[in-house]
């Protein structure tokens, strides 16, 4: 077994439930490499919801809370609030994170609460058998858009930026080295970090949208369609060409929510003491 797997996988849970050729295994490896490089395994608390990507953290030998569909981020907030020193990481999907759980993404980003949200985007509801997702392209035929999708896809990165996230990146499973580097940045970032990973789903997206169930074809599709740029101002230009811009988009420093809470608590306690005792 890969030494990373030997060290960090919950071996009694193997084999993975992921389909052959799925991108989730590559994300597991990229993430574990980041964890190993930083040596933060004991500080991690993982949260997930429902969907293929929600199983990613379950195979990792960390403390893992895999709760309800769409509600990984509120679970992460509960974990962070009960012990701010832990590093909280959410694994979610495009359906889990942008549709049923979209509201929580907006509000967690708005709070700039310290956590990393990894959203695995395969452009489809894969676990339930290939239904349209908020990330599915216009015209795509899925099990629930048999005549073609009429709805414009949602860009999770733009939502995260508009909502107040302080670190935002997008890569794909064709960029595993960049992904590990970005995971490390995100784990060290103080505040709300959002990492979108475009991932191949040969079984659903490949067969029904892109035209081939071959894993190689689907990975090649990502390589051909993702354009890495350093300057986020070029994103619009790339999108206009029908391609997907990837790269580190944003990293800024803003007051982090739990630190603000601790500051406020300290202040009100001192004020209460000055006034003499409790109420």
């Amino acid at each position: 077994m890969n030494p990373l797997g030997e060290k960090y996988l919950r071996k009694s849970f193997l084999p993975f439930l992921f389909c052959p050729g799925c991108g989730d295994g590559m994300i597991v490896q990229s993430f574990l490499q980041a964890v190993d490089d930083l040596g933060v395994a004991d500080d991690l608390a993982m949260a997930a919801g429902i969907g293929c990507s929600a199983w990613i953290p379950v195979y990792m030998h960390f403390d893992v809370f895999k709760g309800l569909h769409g509600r990984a981020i509120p679970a992460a907030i509960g974990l962070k609030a009960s012990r701010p020193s832990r590093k909280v990481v959410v694994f979610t999907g495009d359906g889990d994170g942008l549709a049923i759980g979209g509201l929580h993404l907006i509000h967690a980003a708005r709070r700039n609460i310290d956590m990393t949200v990894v959203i695995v985007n395969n452009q489809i509801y894969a676990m339930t058998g290939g239904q349209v997702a908020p990330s599915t392209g216009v015209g795509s035929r899925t099990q629930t858009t048999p005549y073609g999708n009429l709805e414009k896809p949602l860009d999770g990165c733009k939502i995260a930026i508009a909502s107040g996230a302080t670190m935002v990146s997008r890569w794909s499973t064709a960029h595993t080295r960049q992904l590990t580097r970005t995971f490390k940045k995100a784990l060290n970032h103080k505040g709300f970090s959002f990492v979108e990973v475009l991932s191949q789903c040969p079984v659903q997206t490949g067969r029904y949208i892109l035209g081939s169930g071959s894993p190689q074809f689907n990975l090649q599709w990502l390589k051909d369609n993702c354009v890495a740029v350093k300057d986020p101002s070029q994103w619009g230009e790339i999108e206009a060409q029908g391609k997907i811009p990837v790269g580190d988009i944003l990293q800024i420093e803003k007051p982090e929510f739990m630190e603000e809470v601790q500051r406020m608590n300290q202040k009100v306690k001192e004020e209460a003491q000055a006034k003499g005792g409790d109420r």
Partner: protein
Amino acid sequence: MKKGRIKVMMGNEACMEAALLAGCRFYAGYPITPATEILEVMSMRLPLLDGLCLQMEDEIAAMVSVVAASWGGGKSMTATSGPGFCLMQEAIGLAVAVEAPCVIVNVQRGGPASGQSTSTAQGDFYQARYGSNGDYSLIVLCPSTAQEMFDHTIKAFNLSERFRTPVIILSDEVVGHIREKVFIPDADQLTFVPRKRPTVPMEEFIAWKADADGVPPMPDFNTGYKIPVISQAKSLDGNRGNAKEADENIRRIVSKIEDHMDEFAEVLIYGAEKAETAFVTFGSVCRAARSAVDMGREKGLALRSVEVKTVWPFPDELVRRALAGAKRIVVAEMNLGMIKREIERVVRQPEIKIELFSKIGGIYPQPQEFLRFLEEKR
């Protein structure tokens, strides 16, 4: 005599005082009448105790964060009312499935849907028990005074730890908003149940293997155990269970509570214990029924009021005993007959007619109406 202090306070405020004494340091909620005061007073008080009160984006987020905060290490709670209680149901099932101790207060108002936001009702009697999907059990307590809002909140936190289960306090607008004297014992006068911790060496610990009482020990996250906590029906090591493992998992989380009801079930009798006419009440209606019993006594009428304090799991045996010898049973409740169904199920004596004195529309029953009901329906 316990040491403590007496204060006039609102039922909702008494609930908060008890929660803080019980050690609750994480509260997440969403404003909703008539439960909002609990969120408000928590946001005032928790910062002084280094806790956190969060107003979340909706009740779903509130309840989920409460469940996760419990696993994060600590006591957590939320409070809501009807529509918010609907939104929380899936996550209440989550708390059951991941066996997370936590407390949920439902200050009932009229329904369905938005119903009557500022009026009292008891229409969530079954929702409190059966609102989430699948087979499960949990504990539901029904206070009828501000004092009981306090006492039941302490009890709820203790039972949630003892059984590793969500405990619901099914209050209503009258109890939530009433202002009356509450005795608050000093902390050292109260008993608090600590969380059950693993006692075996870490490498021998099996996350979902229960002790003889059906309750597995629970370590906090980030204390080295590295546990998988999933919302699925599980195997003992925490993976998705096969048919046999799922069967055992579900049966255990039900029986760990229902086999130990004698530890917490509570049914009181007010008035003449052997009176042939008995009222059956729960929640705020107990108050009017007590007055009716007193008024009846003045008129030479022997009455008893059977007050069901722990409504779920329904205390069949205690209710049967409390109603022994009654020839006429009048169930009084602010819905169209919910606890009445349970009484019919429990009593099963064809010669005894079980009558319903029902009030809906948000009007609290007057004691005189109980006596009038007895006369008119005779």
